């Protein structure tokens, strides 16, 4: 990307500022030594170091994907990233006052402490490679809810951690899951005990500050029987001319009769490669919702998946992608029906603007044993300009004869007659376009908590400024 293009894009991206923070430790390049150094800094048990080293081998063995977005520039840069950057904060803090000023101010600009006060049950804040802040409301802690950094999860709840860790997404799942397994740092460990309902969301916020850096958060969430929780993640970074990498792995276990939601509002700058693996294991009569909002990044490859493991398990995958100039967002979802009487749906709404490209990629597997499974897939694409692109790759493997399967896909263009109709009422053209886009994603956006829906609307308005006419 040229300086001029970057400047143009940076004007619209108000989170593109960088802090003047000197890291305590920076590890460059992809090697066994770096993996050992990460593990040593964290004071990890031996089994985990071995796990990491084996995962690194798996990463090197696995080929680069031959499908999906172009990763060639990323590939060239793989030896030059910083793979671990430790901010100058010792351990995560439970009070914002203990977080260094410069870093705290960044989270304040992002509105995190304010949201925590008003609408959240707990917040985890990651800065480069480490969680610098993690806190949960006392009454939830008293009920036995655990909400900690992944590091503290390992240290303080090793047995519980080990029972589920890497069971939902093993390192061999894909090349980037292997990379994360070797390098992971930060992310959350969440456990909600049986029957406990966490009514307001827990939020994790991922901030990148260092240039040429790869962030590898790892999150493990266990919702025990009949419990309920909603986890939200958000992210931003400064804009640099060089590429950046974010490769997370999210594992969720939803036990019998439990209900969980995982919401992502991804707003990385357009130099970020965002390659994330998210999977939930949904047990008997349990429910899981993925709400995946992708607005930022240069390339995103992300297909939240649910494995419906127990009878009567249900899952919904709701996806919004907004690709502008210089962006290719390859998103969608996967549903694996592994038991009878399961049901699941994918609703994907993508918007492509300027020369942006959004792709829907979905996988539905209904083997014979998934009797009476119900599947519904709907993917709709909206193109704003002539040069905007969209494509769909809906894979379906249906073997169960008693399954009911629905699939619908539409592509539409921002219609002149809609714009004219709205403008004749006095609404300026940009706002009319934003209103149409908001209406387009409404079936998904209405599932967001109010504050996040408002934020999403604001982001869309910013995106739509000067985009038509």
């Amino acid at each position, binding site marked *: 990307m040229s300086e001029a293009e970057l400047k143009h894009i940076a004007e619209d991206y108000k989170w593109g500022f960088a802090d003047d923070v000197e890291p305590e430790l920076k590890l460059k390049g992809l090697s066994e030594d770096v993996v050992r150094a990460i593990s040593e800094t964290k004071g990890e048990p031996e089994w985990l170091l071995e796990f990491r080293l084996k995962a690194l081998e798996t990463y090197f063995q696995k080929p680069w994907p031959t499908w999906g977005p172009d990763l060639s520039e990323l590939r060239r840069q793989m030896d030059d990233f910083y793979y671990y950057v430790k901010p100058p904060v010792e351990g995560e803090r439970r009070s914002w006052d203990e977080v260094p000023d410069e870093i705290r101010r960044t989270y304040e600009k992002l509105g995190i402490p304010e949201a925590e006060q008003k609408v959240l049950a707990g917040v985890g804040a990651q800065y480069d490679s480490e969680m610098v802040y993690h806190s949960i409301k006392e009454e939830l802690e008293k009920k036995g809810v655990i909400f900690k950094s992944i590091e503290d999860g390992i240290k303080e709840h090793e047995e519980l951690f080990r029972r589920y860790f890497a069971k939902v997404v093993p390192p061999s799942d894909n090349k980037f899951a292997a990379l994360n397994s070797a390098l992971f740092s930060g992310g959350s460990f969440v456990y909600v005990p049986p029957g406990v309902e966490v009514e307001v969301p827990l939020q994790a916020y991922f901030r990148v500050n260092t240039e040429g850096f790869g962030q590898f958060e790892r999150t493990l969430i266990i919702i025990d029987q009949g419990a309920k929780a909603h986890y939200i993640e958000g992210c931003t970074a400064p804009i640099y001319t060089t590429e950046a990498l974010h490769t997370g792995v999210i594992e969720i276990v939803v036990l019998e009769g439990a209900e969980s939601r995982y919401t992502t509002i991804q707003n990385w700058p357009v130099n970020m490669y965002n390659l994330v693996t998210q999977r939930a294991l949904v047990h008997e009569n349990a429910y899981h919702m993925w709400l995946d909002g992708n607005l930022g990044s240069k390339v995103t490859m992300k297909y939240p998946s649910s494995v419906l493991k127990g009878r009567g398990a249900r899952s919904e995958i709701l996806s919004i992608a907004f690709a502008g100039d210089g962006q290719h967002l390859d998103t969608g979802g996967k549903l694996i029906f592994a038991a009878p009487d399961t049901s699941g749906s994918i609703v994907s709404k993508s918007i492509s603007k300027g020369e942006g490209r959004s792709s829907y990629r979905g996988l539905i597997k209904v083997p014979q044993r998934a009797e009476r499974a119900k599947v519904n897939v709907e993917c709709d694409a909206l193109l704003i300009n002539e040069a905007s692109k969209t494509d769909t790759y809906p894979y379906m493997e249906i073997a169960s004869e008693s399954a009911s399967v629905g699939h619908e896909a539409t592509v539409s263009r921002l219609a002149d007659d809609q714009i004219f109709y709205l403008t*004749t*009422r006095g609404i300026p053209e940009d706002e*009319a376009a934003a209103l149409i886009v908001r209406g387009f994603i409404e079936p998904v956006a209405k599932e967001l908590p109010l504050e996040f829906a408002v934020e999403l609307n604001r982001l869309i308005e910013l995106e739509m400024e000067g985009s038509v006419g």
Partner: protein
Amino acid sequence: MKQTLEIHDLWVNVEGIPILKGVNLTVPRGEVHALMGPNGAGKSTLGKVIAGDPGYEVLRGQILLDGEDIVELEPDERARKGLFLAFQYPVEVPGVTIANFLRLALQARRGEEVALGEFYGKLQRAIETLEWDEAYVTRYLNEGFSGGEKKRNEILQLMVLEPAYAILDETDSGLDIDALKVVAKGVNTMRGPNFGALVITHYQRLLNYIVPDVVHVMMDGRIVKTGGSELALELEERGYDWLKEEVGA
């Protein structure tokens, strides 16, 4: 300040084909004018051109709103100056509720926030006049509406936005007699010294309920005859052919 909507010698092409060929028309505030004429005469074209549809090419002429030429203005600017077009074919906008959209429109026209209380007050009064169900305002704009519901929704917007000038394009088509009466009641509540309207219709029927002060007849892109409300009755009785011969169109 002049209180009229004036069209002067308006010439309009669509894709190179002349549609309006020198239209002259003046609607003062305080009056309701009817615009009649056979299918294809150019009535809807005139309505859309006044509202600022970018799909039409204005070759010549003026559109004066209270004395100011608005030909170069965008549709939203014209609306904020007090113009309103009730569409012959209202457009569907999925996912956008009537209430949300109308409040945004009202705020855009006023250039300031409109309190929820005031907004819902206006909305409720309009709904009552139109004998409509309140549940409609939480539905998505025209999505899945019948022809009649769409027309009622246009008049709801008219009543909430309270423009200085309204153009109603075949608001009567597709309405049964009860709906027609209700829609007419809505328009009639708007009548007063600060409101002028141009009611485009094909039939006399609507004009029994919205009695016009003046009737214009358009043929082949021109206003060929102007008269009182009795002209509408005459057209109903005799059709348009005699007029064609009279004006040599």
